[in-house]
């Protein structure tokens, strides 16, 4: 008898094999930086001029944000100063027979200078960074607007690393100084006021261990 209808044999439904995630080597998580970040392991979107193609940045460092407190307080005082001396300033302009527009212009100029003071202090902090890569240590120094210096040293030239953490403030906010001693007449690297100095010293120590044994 001819078969009118033959039900198709239902193949056991199998889910499409999801692409196997072949992880030859576990990649280190990369974290993006915040605007005020002072310490970041495996930072994303950070690079420097002399960086090689395959050179990965392991650690991003800059002074702890709390070290900005002195100039932040000074800025706050400078902002409030003309408000406290408003009466005195108006008396002064009257006694000197100066038109009020002079006072206005000079006041605007004063606040522009205060802004510049804060801005320069901020960028001095912002651009003075240290980077530890797989191959070298990069120290970018930026101060007094007209001075900047980029110092680098290969990891195999590092001889010793130590750190200091003194005072209540440094202990409370967990920041301190890390000193990297280099071989020969190469200048030493001082990372001052950086967060987690113990961890930084440990990372550099591990790296120079790897480099020396490689």
């Amino acid at each position, binding site marked *: 008898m001819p078969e009118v209808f033959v039900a198709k044999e239902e193949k056991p439904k199998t889910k499409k094999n999801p692409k196997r995630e072949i992880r030859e080597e576990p990649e280190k998580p990369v974290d*993006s*930086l915040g*605007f005020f970040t002072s310490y970041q392991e495996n930072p*994303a*979107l*950070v*690079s*420097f*001029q002399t960086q090689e193609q395959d050179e990965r940045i392991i650690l991003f460092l800059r002074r702890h944000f709390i070290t900005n407190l002195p100039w932040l307080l000074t800025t706050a005082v400078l902002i409030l100063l003309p408000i406290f001396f408003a009466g005195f300033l108006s008396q002064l302009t009257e006694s000197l*027979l*100066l*038109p009020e*527009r*002079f006072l206005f*212009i*000079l006041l*605007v*100029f004063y606040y*522009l*200078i205060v*802004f*510049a003071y804060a*801005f*320069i202090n901020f*960028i001095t902090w*912002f*651009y003075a*960074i240290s*980077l530890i890569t797989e191959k070298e240590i990069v120290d*970018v120094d*930026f101060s007094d*607007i*007209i001075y*900047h210096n*980029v110092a680098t040293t290969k990891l195999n030239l590092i001889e010793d690393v130590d750190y200091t953490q003194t005072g209540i403030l440094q202990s409370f906010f967990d920041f301190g100084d890390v000193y990297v001693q280099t071989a020969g007449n190469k200048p030493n690297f001082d990372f001052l006021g950086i967060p987690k100095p113990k961890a930084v010293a440990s990372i550099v120590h591990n790296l120079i261990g790897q480099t020396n044994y490689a």
Partner: protein
Amino acid sequence: MPEELSFIFSLLQSTLLLKIVVVLMFFFYILFALIVFNQVRVMNNIVKIAHFGSFISLIALLHLIGAISLFLIALVIL
């Protein structure tokens, strides 16, 4: 009357002198703002820190524009 006139004249002269000093001061401030802007640009070439470099550049540019505006305002209203 001549005494009053000389007083007004000396006052005008002192105001004019003050205006020159202030305008000169603002001019030098523009140069300073230019240096700041240039340094920020140089630093952005040396290190790239996420996308914050362009934001800092923008602030430096606004500072420069502020300095130029103040100079021009001083020229007009003083």
